[in-house]
């Protein structure tokens, strides 16, 4: 009993939903009809959300760049230091060029030479003038290598400039010494002149008592002569003092300028990630200036950019430390890349390699990455970039192929997650197309357009969109003849034919208040029959032949002339002949008002299929009729 009730309810539900599930008839804008269409599809916002979610996932999945690289802001962050990364395209081209090149003998020689220079500049080694000069000469050899980029010449020029300044300072020092000698002489002259004037004045004072007024006048003239000479000597002395001060100022200025140029170049090398050259220049600086002026006076703005948020006072030593740390980090990074690659973690190796490459682009430590490995990573890198482009353009078919290729290149690539994301996006697009067709059938063109736009947005090359457009075109063409076709079929009671052409007829009769309800009625009926037939076929597969027959009996009550339904009955009848025999007998007896005979036949049929709904209803019906016949007629 329960089973029958459940089965019936399920059928009713399916019938209700089936009209839509099968691309059912346009039923007008009644809320009860449009609701399933809306419930069965996603809203526009959820589709966009899905699309965005996939794009975000694709961006993460197909983007091999490290989190420390920010191409939007053009920065690369390494241990709190921020470098200018330039735009992604430029970085990509340099990175690909690196992956395409092979370590050369020239680079090995260059690496050895730079190590030699750094070793020579070490404080633990011989730092005589001759040794430093030899080291300086090595810079010109280093600048001859392509990989050096001429930066060693810049270092050499800086050192040479410092030397020149120092030489000029020596010349200034000599002039200053001469002036100081002259000043001493002039001071003595001025002092002697003053002394002599005082002596003369005292001698003439003694003779004044003996002499007259005329003599007083003569002595006045002698004093005037001595005073004038002394004042000239004072002027000479002042001039000499001024010259000395000017020379001192010039010397200080020239020396400071040389140091500032050095410091500026060190910071500049750091910013350019020329860490070896920064180290070499720092080494020369410390040798040339003997530890004085270690505090950085220039490049504060650049340092603020390189070390954001730091208010520390930096020295040349701290710049050396940063450069050395970077070189060491590149070395360990290369080891990590090689280890990850050898363990089959190719995606991880590629990600780390980009970090290492950017930091140590001008360092020869990168030569530790073998050529074969570079080529493999290049293939993976290019495939990932292409996949990223395909994801951006939402070419899911091409992307699927590429994902499989990437999975072959990298074992640690999350292929399943990628394919799952692609399938989800495709499904969402398909659902939007389906919703669009539903709305189109309901003559809700605006909503249909909205759903179609969403389907295109999620998956522009979805083949279902093309099919939808072709179907719509076909419907529009057939719509003009729809009225005549419907009238003809309806007159001949060809309900199945109407049902099969329901789409175009619905389109054609959407504004026809007379025919539209008739069309709805026919389509509803045939849809119910169709569902019952499908249900019965499913039950036959499950071995429930009698239950299947009952569904076909239900369908026959709706329209006994339906072709597919009758075909299904004909196919099933031999398997349920004992049941059918009793039911037919019951029908015949009931038709002749032989209710007892009908009741007996129903009981016999129920013995064959105890769960029969038809038998249960027939028994109740015939028993009631029988009882009515047995009731004594009341006489008034």
């Amino acid at each position: 009993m329960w089973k029958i009730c459940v089965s019936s309810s399920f059928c009713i539900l399916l019938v209700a939903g089936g009209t839509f599930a099968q691309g059912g008839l346009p039923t007008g804008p009644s809320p009860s009809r449009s609701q399933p269409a809306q419930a069965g599809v996603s809203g526009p916002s959820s589709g966009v959300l899905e699309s965005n979610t996939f794009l975000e996932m694709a961006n993460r999945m197909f983007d091999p760049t490290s989190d420390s690289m920010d191409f939007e802001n053009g920065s690369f962050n390494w241990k709190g230091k921020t470098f200018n990364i330039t735009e992604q395209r430029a970085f990509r081209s340099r990175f690909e060029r690196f992956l395409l090149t092979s370590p050369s003998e020239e680079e090995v020689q260059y690496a050895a030479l730079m190590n030699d220079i750094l070793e020579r500049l070490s404080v633990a080694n011989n730092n005589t003038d001759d040794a430093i000069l030899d080291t300086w000469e090595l810079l010109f050899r280093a600048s001859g290598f392509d990989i050096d980029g001429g930066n060693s010449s810049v270092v050499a020029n800086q050192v040479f400039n410092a030397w020149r300044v120092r030489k000029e300072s020596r010349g200034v020092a000599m002039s200053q010494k001469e002036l100081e000698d002259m000043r001493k002489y002039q001071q003595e002259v001025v002092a002697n002149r003053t002394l002599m004037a005082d002596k003369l004045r005292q001698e003439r004072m003694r003779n004044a008592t003996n002499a007259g007024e005329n003599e007083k006048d003569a002595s006045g003239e002698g004093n005037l002569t001595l005073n004038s000479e002394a004042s000239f000597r004072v002027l000479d002395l002042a001039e000499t003092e001024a010259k000395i001060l000017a020379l001192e100022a010039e010397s200080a200025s020239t020396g400071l300028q040389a140091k500032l140029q050095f410091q500026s170049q060190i910071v500049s090398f750091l910013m350019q990630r020329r860490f070896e050259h920064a180290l070499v220049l720092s080494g020369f600086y410390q040798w040339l200036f003997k530890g004085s002026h270690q505090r950085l006076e220039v490049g504060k703005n650049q340092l603020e950019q390189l070390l954001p948020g730091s208010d520390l006072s930096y020295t040349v030593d701290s710049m050396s430390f940063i450069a050395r740390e970077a070189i060491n980090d590149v070395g360990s990074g290369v080891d990590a890349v090689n280890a990850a690659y050898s363990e089959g973690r190719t995606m991880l190796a590629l990600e780390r390699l980009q970090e290492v490459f950017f930091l140590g682009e001008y360092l020869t430590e990168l030569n530790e990455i073998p050529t074969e490995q570079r080529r493999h990573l290049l293939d993976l890198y290019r495939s990932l970039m292409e996949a990223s482009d395909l994801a951006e353009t939402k070419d899911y078919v091409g992307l699927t192929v590429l994902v499989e290729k990437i999975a072959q290149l990298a074992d640690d690539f999350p292929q399943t997650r990628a394919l799952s994301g692609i399938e989800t996006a495709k499904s969402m697009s398909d659902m939007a197309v389906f919703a669009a067709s539903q709305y189109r059938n309901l003559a809700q063109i605006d909503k249909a357009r909205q759903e179609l736009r969403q389907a295109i947005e999620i998956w522009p090359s979805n083949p279902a969109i093309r099919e939808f457009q072709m179907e719509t075109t076909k419907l529009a063409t057939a719509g003009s003849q729809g009225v005549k076709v419907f009238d003809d079929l309806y007159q001949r009671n060809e309900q199945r034919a109407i049902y099969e052409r329901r789409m175009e007829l619905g389109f054609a009769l959407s504004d026809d208040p007379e025919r539209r309800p008739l069309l709805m009625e026919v389509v509803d009926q045939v849809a119910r029959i169709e569902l019952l037939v499908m249900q019965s076929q499913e039950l036959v597969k499950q071995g429930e032949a009698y239950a299947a027959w009952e569904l076909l009996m239900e369908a026959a009550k709706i329209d006994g002339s339906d072709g597919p339904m009758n075909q299904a009955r004909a196919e099933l009848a031999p398997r349920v002949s004992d049941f059918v025999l009793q039911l037919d007998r019951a029908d015949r007896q009931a038709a002749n008002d032989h209710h007892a005979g009908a009741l007996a036949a129903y009981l016999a049929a129920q013995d064959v299929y105890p769960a029969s709904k038809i038998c249960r209803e027939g028994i109740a019906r015939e028993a009631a009729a029988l009882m009515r016949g047995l009731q004594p007629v009341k006489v008034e």
Partner: protein
Amino acid sequence: MFSIKRQSTHLLSHSLLVAGLMLCGILLSACGRGNFSGLEALPVDDYVEKPGNFLGNTYLLSVQIDSQIEWKEGVGRILAVEAEGSSSRIPIFVPDTIEQNLHVGQRYEMRANIRKGGLIYVEDLRKF
């Protein structure tokens, strides 16, 4: 001689006694079935196939009650019963005039008449 005669007389009296007892048994048995005697059993399968062929006949039914299908006060009840010798259930009508408690699963012998429309009308019944 005398003993032979006496022996034969004794044997005869015994035979008569046995015959008398058998006759009594038969008579008692006939009297016990009352108005069920002489009735033939309903051919159930044939009845189900063509109930019209049995109209007006009276049969003896040995059945077990399967279920009660319908009851109407002052009229009677329609029962589904399983007849002996048949796998099919058949409907019977028991009028209210038969005042007996009928329970599902109980076995009865019934005297039934086939009436209009193939109705099996129970005229009398008893447990067995």
